[in-house]
């Protein structure tokens, strides 16, 4: 057993942290306040090359392994939750199916500029009546003239208001339910593809989020991203595992940043003649956080290691996401108590951590659905898997 990261991973972490400290952190409050996509920061960050993290070098990517990419996601979220969501959407879900199933021509047209940050991508799962329940997807794709015609509306699409292309989940065979779902590439400029309403969100602001509308959008046959019609959900298992662990590490980072701020505050802020850090009830908050944070992070990196090793880890990834994001809720809640009334003032950071933490609860599956799945698996087979 050895729980240390290697020197290469530590060096990589230092480089990412440096980039985040210098480029993103100074902009975090402004991004949150404006709730606008920070195009200049996007261009500056894209020029560093991190957007190709998980893609092959021949397309301008880094071909990073899973633990290394998780290090990146953890450090990235220390800066701005909103900006992190835009970047991770581009790196993971926004380009995954294009990288895996796109023709060479599609990769050159879409993936290569996406890795450079010149084109912005996203993935479209959620609709007004479906999110965690993907079987409820009502967007359809019907074969016509050697291609497909897509109709539907997608909601809660990260990067949607600024996207140049998207991967859309649509039903190609309603009789098959979940197994009839497929992914399609839709690009800006295609007739019938439009952006709808943009959301004004509580947290994770700056990762602009909104509706995308598909009104008789014709896409050629090669824009079906998969082995053939249907089976899309099966193909998304791997990437969903990564997304869940990524979300877990985003949560670890936000909790850690919030607690670090609270530590500084507790050491400085005096009450009854001494810093509040000297009181046991305040110390208990740091003790609890340290333990929870350590546990969440270990679970997340263990899941990352299992993905890298090709092990079956669907439930470990769900547990990591669920536990770490719940840990983050507790942490940011305690931070607001340490700051007391000041946590309610917009000039202090805890209110932003508090709002951002809520966002992480929902992506990658709401916890009611995840708990149901984990519980059912436990009852079916018992733990004993690891």
């Amino acid at each position, binding site marked *: 057993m050895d729980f240390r990261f290697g020197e290469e991973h530590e*060096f990589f972490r*230092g*480089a990412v942290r*440096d980039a985040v400290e210098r480029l993103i952190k100074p902009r975090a409050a402004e991004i949150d306040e404006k709730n606008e996509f920070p195009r200049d920061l996007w261009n500056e960050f894209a020029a*560093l090359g991190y957007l190709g993290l998980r893609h092959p070098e021949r397309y301008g990517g*880094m071909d990073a392994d899973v633990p290394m990419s998780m290090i990146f996601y953890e450090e990235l979220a220390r800066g701005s939750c909103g900006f992190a969501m835009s970047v991770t959407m581009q790196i993971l879900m926004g380009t995954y199916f294009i990288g895996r199933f796109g023709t060479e021509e599609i990769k050159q047209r879409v993936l290569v500029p996406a890795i450079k940050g010149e084109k912005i991508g996203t993935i479209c799962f959620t609709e007004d009546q479906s999110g965690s329940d993907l079987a409820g997807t009502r967007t359809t794709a019907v074969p016509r003239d050697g291609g497909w015609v897509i109709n539907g509306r997608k909601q809660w699409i990260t990067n949607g208001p600024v996207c140049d292309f998207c991967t859309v989940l649509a039903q190609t065979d309603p009789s098959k339910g979940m197994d009839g779902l497929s992914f399609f590439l839709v690009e800006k400029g295609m007739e019938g593809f439009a952006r709808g309403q943009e959301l004004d969100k509580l947290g994770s602001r700056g990762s602009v989020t909104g509706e995308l509308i598909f009104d008789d959008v014709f896409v050629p046959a090669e824009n079906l991203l998969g082995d053939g019609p249907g089976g899309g959900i099966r193909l998304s298992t791997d990437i969903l595992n990564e997304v869940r662990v990524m979300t877990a590490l985003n949560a670890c980072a936000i909790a850690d940043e919030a607690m670090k701020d609270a530590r500084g505050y507790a050491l400085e802020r005096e009450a009854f*003649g001494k810093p509040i850090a000297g009181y046991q009830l305040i110390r208990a908050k740091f003790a609890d956080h340290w333990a929870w944070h350590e546990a969440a992070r270990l679970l997340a990196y263990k899941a990352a290691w299992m993905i890298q090793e090709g092990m079956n880890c669907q439930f470990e990834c769900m547990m990591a996401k669920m536990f770490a994001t719940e840990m983050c809720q507790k942490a940011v809640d305690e931070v607001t108590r340490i700051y007391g009334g000041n946590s309610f003032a917009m000039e202090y950071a805890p209110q932003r951590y508090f709002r951002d933490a809520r966002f992480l609860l929902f992506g990658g599956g709401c916890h009611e659905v995840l708990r149901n799945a984990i519980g059912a698996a436990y009852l079916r087979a018992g733990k004993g898997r690891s």
Partner: protein
Amino acid sequence: MALKVAVLVRQVPDHEATVRVEGDGLEIEDRWVTSFFDEIAVEAAVSLVQGIPGAQIKAFSAGGRWAVEALRRAMAMGIDEVEQVADEALEGASGLPVARALCAALSRWRPDLVLCGKQAGDDDMGAVGPMVSALLGVPVVSGATSLAVDAAARKVRLTRGADGERWIVEAGLPLVVTAEKGLAEPRVPVVMRVMKAMRAPVPAVTPAELGVDPGPAGARRLRYLPPPSRPEVRMCESVDELACLLRQRGVLS
């Protein structure tokens, strides 16, 4: 002859690392970064050689594990060739032994221009640059805020600040220059260079192989004292109470 530029780098505790006085020493959180002024020197050197055809650039650091980290950072920022003067005892050592070790490595490579930070980010001694200059027997210009090299004429033109004044200095090569804020803005390394830096071997040579004994420091820190704690804050209920208190303390008569 092509211009050869050497850059000296070292790691220091991150400015956010917690530092506590423990006994006669310091307990420092294990978070290290390349010294801020050394990063400026690296950036200045990388930018400089880009404009001079055939110019060579090499980074040097003396020490153990942290010297390797500093050299990897220099590689990530754009320097391909590096050399570690490997001696764990030089990690955290004071100026003179470090300068002797670096000087031995520099003498072997024979640079025209040596760049380093004007001071380390931890002890602020500002010693190594001038010491290297003295040991090499070449002039030093400290605290440079701009730098232009005419490689053909082997001349350097620099600016430096001095107590509100702005000096324009001309010097010949070889020369040691220490970098001040403003000389260059250190870049955020692109990821491909980060990946290259973290995988590249870091060539090492020991002081013994260079035929040098870094020797004693000649000066040592006796002990550290924590900063004085903040005096007690007392809230007064009224102006009269405050005035009374100030009279008691002899502040008001």
